[in-house]
């Protein structure tokens, strides 16, 4: 780049998200029909949710409870104007049996909240939440006679979903990038799952995103013309849509075109947004208060009670894990992603296992096992107690990391007490100096060439000797003692014949570092520097760097 080139205007995206969260209630928002996904079409229907004349909707207590819980967790004020009401939003579409949707317009359940997001490499950031309101879902349309809407001869309607309880959560336009948009959506999903108010099942549409995006010169304060993008059903789609739309709009502005205010659709197949009809004539929904439902007005005691019952949320856990427990932000993020995992971790730590060791164990072998078997952590036979017992055996010097690694598959398979297993199979660590010294002597006697090479300066061979000792003891030797013994033995005769040329027959460089790599480091130890004596340490002093650790679990 030359300094004479004209400065290119840099653009930034201004993004707001509307997220529809399906509340995990048994029944619909205003009637007693099931919310079960995947039932035979039109089995979860009744006169109320199909809008028969003379029927009366009544609010589901559980849905209200969940919505207030979510609003509280999102730091919202509950109906700051003293009460909240429902309104009819009127439009015609065959998925809407009543020709209006019961929603909330000017007095939503909650307003003025925020949530905190963390993007790798950026400072934590608060994203404002404009409002949270309750509304009923629409039905599902199946277009028959063609696989696309335009070619269909008629449409089939399934009202099973019509009337299911939703929360719509609208963010402020505080989001600036695709990564932030995804982080916001993921954090929202994490929070509602922590609270148990939504199952977060993306495939079944329990969480749906609409995106508002405009561009402007970076750092500006005026908003550009915004475009709404619908049909985003995954974090990936959300991120891609932001990237695509940002580029499209910037190109538009740079070439002097006008950006049209419109609704666009994310097309998963072609990975682009396509224009629906432009919003020249804004929809006229003619909202008016729903006369069949009375307002919601919670008193301050009730609202406080929600705040008290909230429990620790993901962001608070992340802060505590980093601050009080001294974990890396990566570890904290991974452990708090699911509440069950965080609770498991906390139980292990409560059983006197160092936090870092517990984190590595969970993010390493346990995570790998969960991935492989597609189980959730609450289903596995290695309970927090089993984990803590196993890790304690290592910390007490009763077994080596290697033995612990060997025990794990069996424990995952059948559960049981690691301590009993170790005793039964005679796997206790050999720490007796005298006993190990004999073995060390035997090993050194049988490897005179390597001993000579070591003494000639190839000190990396230490790991090779450790490996030999481990092999002889079936992994039971205390690596620390072996290390000490070897180092002192090999140092006994520092004067040695001159080293042989580099190319001379050298013993194979076995990867001895894996001989007793800490449990959690098992995966990356394979690539670790051969012979690094540091790898053979107590489990709590794990040798990995955050970078290699991440790679191992990416």
């Amino acid at each position, binding site marked *: 780049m030359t300094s004479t080139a004209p400065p290119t205007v840099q653009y930034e995206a201004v993004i707001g998200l509307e997220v529809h969260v399906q509340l995990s*209630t048994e029944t619909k928002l205003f009637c007693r029909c099931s919310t079960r996904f995947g039932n035979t079409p039109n089995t979860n*229907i009744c006169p109320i949710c*199909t809008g028969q004349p003379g029927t009366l909707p*009544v609010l589901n207590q559980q*849905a209200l409870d969940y919505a207030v819980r979510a609003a509280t967790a999102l730091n919202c004020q509950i109906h700051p104007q003293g009460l909240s009401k429902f309104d009819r939003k009127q439009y015609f579409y*065959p998925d809407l049996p009543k020709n209006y949707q019961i929603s909330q317009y000017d007095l939503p359940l909650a307003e003025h909240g925020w949530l905190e997001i963390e993007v790798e490499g950026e400072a934590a950031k608060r994203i404002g939440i404009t409002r949270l309101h309750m509304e009923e879902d629409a039905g599902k349309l199946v277009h*028959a006679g063609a696989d696309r809407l335009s070619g269909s001869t008629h449409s089939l309607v399934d009202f099973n979903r019509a009337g299911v309880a939703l929360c719509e959560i609208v963010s402020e336009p505080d989001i600036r990038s695709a990564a932030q948009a995804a982080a916001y959506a993921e954090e929202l999903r994490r929070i509602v799952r922590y609270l148990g108010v939504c199952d977060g099942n993306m495939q079944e549409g329990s969480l749906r995103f609409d995106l508002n995006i405009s561009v402007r010169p970076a750092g500006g304060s005026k908003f550009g013309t915004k475009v709404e993008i619908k049909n985003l059903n995954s974090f990936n789609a959300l991120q891609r849509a932001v990237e695509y739309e940002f580029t499209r709009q910037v190109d538009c502005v740079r070439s002097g075109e006008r950006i049209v205010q419109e609704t666009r659709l994310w097309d998963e197949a072609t990975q682009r947004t396509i224009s629906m009809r432009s919003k020249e004539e804004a929809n006229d929904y003619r909202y008016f*208060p729903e006369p069949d439902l009375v*307002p919601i007005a919670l008193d301050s005691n009730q609202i406080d009670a929600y705040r008290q019952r909230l429990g620790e949320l993901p962001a608070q856990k992340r802060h505590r894990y980093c601050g009080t427990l001294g974990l890396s932000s990566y570890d904290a993020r991974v452990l708090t992603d699911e509440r069950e995992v965080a609770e498991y971790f906390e139980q292990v730590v409560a059983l006197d296992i160092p936090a870092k060791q517990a984190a590595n164990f969970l993010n390493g072998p346990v995570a790998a096992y969960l991935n492989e078997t597609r189980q959730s952590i609450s289903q596995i036979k290695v309970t927090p107690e089993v984990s803590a017992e196993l890790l304690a055996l290592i910390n007490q010097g009763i077994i080596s990391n290697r033995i612990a690694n060997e025990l794990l598959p069996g424990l995952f398979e059948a559960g049981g007490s690691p301590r009993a297993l170790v005793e039964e199979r005679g796997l206790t660590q050999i720490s007796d100096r005298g006993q190990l010294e004999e073995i060390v002597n035997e090993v050194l006697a049988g490897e005179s060439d390597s001993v000579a090479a070591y003494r000639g300066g190839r000190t990396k061979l230490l790991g090779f000797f450790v490996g030999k000792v481990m092999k002889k003891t079936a992994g039971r030797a205390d690596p620390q003692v072996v290390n000490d013994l070897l180092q002192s033995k090999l140092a006994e005769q520092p004067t040695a014949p001159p080293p042989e040329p580099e190319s001379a027959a050298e013993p194979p460089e076995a990867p001895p570092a894996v001989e007793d790599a800490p449990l959690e480091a098992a995966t990356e130890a394979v690539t670790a520097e051969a012979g690094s004596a540091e790898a053979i340490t107590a489990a709590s002093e794990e040798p990995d760097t955050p970078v290699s650790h991440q790679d191992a679990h990416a």
Partner: protein
Amino acid sequence: MIDREQVKKVAFLARLELTEEEQEMFTRQLGSILDYIAELQRVETEGVPPTTRAIEVNNVVRPDELVVCENREGILENAPDRAEDFFKVPRIIED
């Protein structure tokens, strides 16, 4: 006051087809309703908080308990058209 164009717009939003005579009639009738509302609007409401209902009842809720509707067939049968388990509607025209 309401004019004929507004009546036509409201009719369109409600998907009602009105004849010339009906448009004329509803313009007159809606006009007189709006006149009456205008009269109500002259009432002094200074200091009276707005409300959306006539009765002072809040927080009416029901427990989240499943009750399966026994008349699913009746609801499907009541529709103008059906295709097995589905309601069948004319093709959606994107105008």
